[in-house]
């Protein structure tokens, strides 16, 4: 059922997001080609460039906005009567939305990178770039990181994206659940926010102390310290990220289950 729900989510959100991405890619092609004629028609090319830039912005903002609007309408609005009567659990409903959101973020980021690449390639600026060299440069950049660091980086990015998404989900759901107790909701939201901040602060301090100690042991050189902060002791930071995300998830789930307040 989760897969079916995810398909439905893609369908519902892709209606707007896909054309947005399509427009951006098309504009990147146009902008890339146009750049070749920059000297001849600088003004027109400038306009095209602005348009392309706008489309990148539209994708970044639009994909997120579509996801959030869809969440509201699909679970908290009229469509909720259909979705919440389906033979699926609230977990499946929430997770399908969260997973699809994460996939969209990654896809949108990849498409934006691709479009920048298209502009570069089509404008002829990449003529002199050897991709072998590029790859080597990238490898060098990350050469001192082992596989574990990559996992940490990936988990960190995914966790942060999930956290932001869940923050919105929780806010939408809870503010709807307590629609008749606005003040109560705002107080509660503030308390939760402060708790999250304190948790973040104390954990960060802890990580910082441990990293310092680690750096002292190694010898206090600049490089290793940096590695230690981001690579050596990140598990607590990750745990904090995921615990916060899980807390928001549970809050959203509980509000949907026990205080559903469909319009």
């Amino acid at each position, binding site marked *: 059922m989760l897969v079916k729900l995810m398909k439905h989510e893609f369908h519902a959100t892709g209606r707007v997001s896909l054309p947005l991405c399509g427009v951006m890619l098309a504009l990147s092609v146009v902008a890339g080609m146009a750049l070749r004629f920059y000297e001849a028609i600088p003004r027109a090319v400038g306009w095209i460039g602005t348009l392309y830039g706008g489309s990148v912005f539209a994708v970044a903002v639009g994909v997120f906005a579509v996801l959030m609007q869809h969440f509201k309408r699909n679970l908290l609005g*009229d469509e*909720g009567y259909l979705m919440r*009567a389906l033979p699926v659990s609230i977990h499946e409903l929430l997770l399908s939305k969260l997973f699809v959101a994460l996939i969209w973020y990654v896809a949108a980021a990849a498409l934006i990178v691709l479009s920048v690449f298209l502009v570069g390639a089509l404008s002829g600026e990449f003529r002199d770039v050897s991709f072998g060299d590029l790859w080597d440069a990238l490898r060098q950049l990350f050469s001192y990181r082992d596989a574990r660091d990559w996992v940490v980086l990936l988990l960190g990015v995914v966790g942060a994206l999930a956290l932001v998404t869940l923050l919105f989900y929780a806010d939408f759901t809870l503010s709807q659940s307590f629609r008749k107790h606005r003040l109560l909701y705002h107080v509660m939201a503030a308390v939760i926010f402060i708790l999250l901040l304190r948790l973040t602060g104390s954990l960060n301090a802890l990580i910082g102390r441990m990293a310092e100690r680690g750096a002292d042991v190694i010898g206090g050189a600049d490089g290793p310290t940096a590695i230690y902060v981001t690579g050596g002791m990140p598990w607590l930071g990750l745990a904090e990220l995921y615990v916060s995300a899980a807390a928001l998830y549970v809050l959203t789930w509980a509000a949907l*289950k026990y205080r559903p307040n469909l319009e």
Partner: protein
Amino acid sequence: MSTILECRALKKRYGTKEALCGVDLTLETGRIVGLLGPNGSGKTTLIKLACGLLTPSGGEIRIDGKKPSPETNAVVSYLPERIALPLWMTAQQAMDFYGNFYADFRRDAAEDMVERLRLERTQTIRAMSKGTREKLQLILTMARAAKLYLLDEPLGGVDPASRDYILRTILTGYREDATVLFSTHLIADVEAVLDEAVFLREGGVLLHERVDAIREERGKSVDQLFRELFAY
């Protein structure tokens, strides 16, 4: 005859307001039951509790012996008061959606009914009139081979000709191994279709009787009885 819906001392509070205060109700398989009562008597709340859209504040409700859950939702076909279908979907996509999520969806039955409604399959729901949207949603609900149909005001705000169409659609979808529970305040229109009538008043069951019995024993129609019981 087996029991499909059972409520025991079922309560639902919204804040300090009691929407249901101790409902005891048992519905058998193979009946068409009218859920009747003035506005605010708890009809919608009872239906929402049965399909898991709300959780009880007290007492219990069981569908086919189980508490409302995704599992019971698989055998309950629910028609909400309002249009819940995503407006961007076409009739075709809406049928695909139902077919995807409900194993008991009878695609051919739905196609038949859509055909009879002379509905353009590729038209989006957004482009349909209010009446057509309501009919499509009812078609999808009744095209499932569910054990329990919960219809919340299927006749609300439609013209008499549509009312006929809707009652026919309900009768077409009805099977001996299913129970239909529908709320309405248009009693005179639906009386002939009902096996049983459940009268709700202020969150409690005032009366639950066979329609034939009401007529036989009291010599009056359900509509007349309703008017007497709820006279101000």
